[in-house]
């Protein structure tokens, strides 16, 4: 009986499937573990590919970590900004701002910086920093041994032409790996749209900062005076830009006597700006003089 064979096979397997299904259904009720309901909601906003890109074992673990606060709401990169905002709403947080941020190395010293000794140990910044506090005269500067370069998984870091680390803002994803790798904590987060950066972290003032490196910020405050938007200030001996106010006019780069503000203005630009300023000053002085003379000329008339 061929037909009976087919029927019995179908029936037996269907019954087995139904029984196992029933057992699982009952088990899921009996062995139910109360989960944070937010976990399920967050899970629905993750990419669901279990790619492991967030560093957790699958999307479920990532959702659990977000609920526990161990992972940021933006932990799932493939899910995108929209879903990150939705997750933030679930967690009762503000949506992360849309502004892209990138890493920036606060040192442009490299070959400009004086060396106390030749370091020939393991080619690693942490290693170098352990030997007599590092080979540099400057106790804030970049060693240029590339711990951040090897920490970067996106190929965005490199040792620049003058020997200190630089970030390629196009490739940078602001993952923060380089910031953790740098023993001198030189790498900070800046808005990708920012046009000027202070490439020095030396907190010493005047001569102390001047003697260790030819491109150090000495805290002279010229940039602070020059800025029309009140966006750059000398704080603890080093210039700091307030990116909320900075419009990127680059006036500060032109007045900096130490070329510590990137992008470095060329000598030509500096001369031009000096000439413009001089002309402006002369004009202002002339106007003031004329006004004074006019006032002096009018004064006796009034008396008379």
């Amino acid at each position, binding site marked *: 009986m061929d037909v009976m*064979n087919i029927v*019995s*096979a179908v029936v*037996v*397997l269907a019954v*087995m*499937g139904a029984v*196992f*299904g029933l*057992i*699982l259904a009952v*088990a*899921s009720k*009996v*062995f*139910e*573990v109360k989960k944070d309901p937010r976990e399920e909601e967050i899970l629905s906003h993750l990419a669901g590919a279990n790619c492991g890109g967030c560093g957790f*074992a*699958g999307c479920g*673990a990532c959702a659990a970590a977000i609920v526990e606060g161990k992972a940021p709401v933006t932990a799932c990169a493939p899910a995108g900004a929209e879903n990150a905002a939705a997750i933030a709403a679930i967690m009762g947080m503000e949506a992360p701002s849309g502004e892209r941020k990138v890493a920036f190395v606060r040192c442009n010293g490299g070959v400009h910086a004086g060396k106390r000794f030749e370091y020939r140990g393991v080619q690693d910044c942490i290693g170098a920093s352990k030997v007599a506090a590092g080979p540099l005269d400057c106790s804030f500067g970049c060693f240029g041994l590339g711990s951040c370069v090897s920490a970067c998984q996106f190929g965005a870091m490199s040792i620049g032409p003058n020997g200190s680390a630089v970030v390629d803002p196009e490739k940078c994803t602001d993952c923060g790996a380089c910031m953790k790798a740098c023993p001198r904590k030189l790498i900070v987060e800046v808005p990708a749209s920012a046009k000027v950066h202070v490439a020095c972290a030396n907190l010493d003032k005047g001569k102390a900062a001047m003697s260790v490196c030819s491109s150090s910020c000495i805290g002279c405050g010229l940039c602070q005076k020059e800025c029309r938007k009140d966006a750059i200030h000398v704080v603890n001996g080093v210039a700091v830009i307030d990116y909320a106010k900075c419009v990127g006019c680059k006036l500060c780069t032109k007045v900096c006597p130490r070329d510590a503000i990137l992008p470095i203005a060329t000598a030509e630009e500096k001369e031009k700006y000096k000439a413009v300023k001089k002309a402006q000053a002369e004009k202002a002085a002339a106007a003031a003089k004329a006004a004074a003379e006019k006032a002096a000329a009018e004064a006796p008339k009034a008396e008379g």
Partner: protein
Amino acid sequence: MSSGLINIFSIALGAILANNFIFSQFLGICPFLGVSKKLDTALGMGVAVTFVMGLASAVCYAVNEFILVKFNLEYMQTVAFILVIASLVQFIEMFLQKSMPALYTALGIYLPLITTNCAVLGVVLLNVQNNYNFIDSLVYGITGGLGFLLAIVLFAGVRERNVFADCPKCFEGFPIALVTAGLMALSFMGFSGLSVFG
């Protein structure tokens, strides 16, 4: 009785060394290559597989003996066993989550992954092929799992050291892991002469 013991011993020896599931039967290769980057995760995977293989052997023996043979449906073994293994793994996962959360978190993602491990299906099909009774099946399942555990732990140990080896760029990572696996399989060939005379 003693011949029964010797029989069990020879099954165990075969499953762990001579006919190792990975190195001589090439079953369960995907978790073997996928989860062997770190020693502790490899250990977790191995333990989970051993656990599931033992249980699956027992349950599938019962299913085969009392359902499939009775209805003359032996040809449906593969389908039926997949059904059994999938629901068994699901059940174990739920059970562990409730009653042994520590073990559950230790096994983590590896437990559901075992559903698709061909070594588990392989062991239950081989049980039937070899006409093992219940005790033999159970022993074969557990020792087969132990063989898997041995293989993946050894392999993970080698791979952890391989990372530091200075090998050509084109061999880095997966290719050198495959070469390593091949060499280990060759070395396990040395056990093929082992047998228990009783």
